[in-house]
């Protein structure tokens, strides 16, 4: 779910170099952590080593797919992995995760109960995955370019914003919107529902200015489009650039995504791994990470102490109501994945 630019990767790299440079005392034990680049404050890593004497080797990937490919190549033995919900689901299903006793952790309670509930979509008994950051998908729009309030996915489909709409260039995200708009589950495996969604997307295509991923936000910031479908983290940044922008999770509901941690089955030091996860849940650490990343944090202790402005920003802190309408996206089985692929190609060919 995390899409970071090259710049971010470079900063992370520099962070990694700095980390390598300051080895005063060689730690006796190490944990190899696999995460996205720029998805953890480098200070936090230092702090962990200082406090516990356990060294961290931080490995990075850009996308869940890349992470999976690197992980399964087996070149490096990772102890902890953080990735998107559907990828964590895949790893759990493939038996790559080992159980973690979250109840024995001191700070795991900081993670709000609803996030443990969301996690059940891919970790039914909350045995493996620890929520790290989360977010929603919604509409980022320019308040000066729309008439009336935007609160429904219908604005994307009713033809009133011709050539002013940016959609996500990603199969599941784009279908998710349409399925939700039609009142179906975003994890549906009903071919008819998916085809109905595709028909709607085909009809919408002439109104769509572009299908983009990373640039979706920028196009609205630059005033090239009135609205775009974006991830909530992007929406927050968009608002920083341009005050006229607003973000909404439409009333029909949306996708809530959760990036989570698992301890791998190869981890030889589960105690140290659990210590690290507990550390990440500690309020001051979670706050540092939040202020570094500005995605929604499931850590309620952090949310309580947040500035009012951030706490009321729907891109940073989705309301209880918004979240209640959202679903976690689970990995589609092979047949459905193939159908998605076909429907997507047909949409693009139209």
């Amino acid at each position, binding site marked *: 779910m995390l899409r970071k630019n090259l710049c971010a990767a470079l900063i992370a790299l520099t962070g990694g170099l700095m980390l390598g440079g300051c080895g005063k005392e060689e730690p006796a034990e190490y944990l190899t952590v696999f995460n996205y680049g720029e998805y953890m404050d480098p200070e936090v890593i230092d702090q962990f080593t200082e406090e516990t004497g356990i060294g961290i080797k931080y490995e990075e990937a850009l996308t869940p797919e890349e992470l999976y490919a690197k992980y399964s190549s087996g070149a490096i033995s990772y102890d902890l992995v953080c990735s998107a919900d559907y990828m964590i689901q895949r790893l759990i299903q493939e038996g790559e995760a080992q159980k973690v006793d979250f109840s024995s952790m001191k700070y795991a309670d900081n993670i709000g109960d609803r996030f443990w509930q969301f996690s059940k979509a891919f970790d039914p008994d909350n045995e493996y995955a620890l929520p790290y950051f989360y977010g929603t998908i919604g509409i980022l729009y320019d308040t000066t370019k729309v008439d009336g309030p935007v609160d429904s996915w219908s604005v994307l489909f009713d033809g009133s914003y011709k050539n002013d709409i940016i959609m996500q260039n990603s199969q599941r995200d784009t279908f998710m919107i349409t399925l939700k708009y039609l009142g179906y589950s975003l994890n549906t495996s009903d071919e008819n529902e998916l085809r109905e969604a595709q028909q709607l997307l085909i009809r919408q295509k002439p109104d769509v*200015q572009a*299908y983009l991923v990373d*640039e979706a936000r920028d196009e609205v910031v630059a*005033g090239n489009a009135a609205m775009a479908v974006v991830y909530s983290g992007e929406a927050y940044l968009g608002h920083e650039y341009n005050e006229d922008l607003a973000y909404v999770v439409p009333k029909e509901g949306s996708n809530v995504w959760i990036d989570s941690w698992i301890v791998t089955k190869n981890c030889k030091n589960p105690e140290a791994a659990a210590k690290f996860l507990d550390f990440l849940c500690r309020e001051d650490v979670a706050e540092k990470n939040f202020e570094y990343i500005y995605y929604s944090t499931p850590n309620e202790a952090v949310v309580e102490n947040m500035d009012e402005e951030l706490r009321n920003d729907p891109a940073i802190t989705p309301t209880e109501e918004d979240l209640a309408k959202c679903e976690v996206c689970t990995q589609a089985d092979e047949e459905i994945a193939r159908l998605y*692929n076909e429907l*997507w190609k*047909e949409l693009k060919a139209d």
Partner: protein
Amino acid sequence: MKRKYLATPYIIWVVGFTLLPLITIGISAFTRDNGTFTWSNILAISEPINRQALFFSLAIALGCTLICILLAYPAALFLKSFRFKRKGFTIFLLVLPMWMNFILRILAWQMILSKNGILNFLLGKLGIAPLSISNTWGALMIGMVYDFLPYMILPVFNAISDIDEDTIEAARDLGAGSMAVFRKIIFPLSMPGMLSGVVMVFVPAMTSFVIADILGGGKVQLIGNIIEQEFMKSMDWHLGAGLSISLMLLVLISLAFTMQNDMEDRGTTIW
């Protein structure tokens, strides 16, 4: 001169980065997930959606190549007319953009062509209604021509520079006008250069997908986009490899036709 060991780096390179990948792709293309042999991945190119994407790619690549040829000749003739020093500098200017990553340059075009972009800003200053070129086939074509044009100008220019001035003067002496000189002397003699230009423009244009994604706004689906999707999104490496092999064969066949009449010419072509 039996210094064959000098070729070692080259051989390692070719084996590691051309042969091995090709073999891997070949194996993927002819197998299913369970490892059994199949033609279906290769034949998938004939499915309507893939065929359509292939047709678009072909049309775009041909169009792009043609426009590049049309632009390259005047440019090359213009360059040739320069005196020596300035010529070097002008060619330098031509090559300079190629030192920058092409994705950055394509992103720049996105900025230029977008709705509130630089082009429409300038048009607005001149009192002309804004154009909506961004995210269309037109934008895609502009980006491709921009990106590949130097690869056409350079070989054409080299070939034209190689033409003996005496040949041209002789033609003039015998009463040929400028058009006749171009048609009967310059064009035929620069053919090998143009053909290498065609290879360097047509092949990447045919297989590109990034430009289509960025400037076509994700609304244009070329065969390269489909292959990318098979590899990256649906993780069907067998189908992706099969389509790549079919595409490779098609490109080879079309190049074989183009190059047929070039075999006996001087070695200015790249193959």
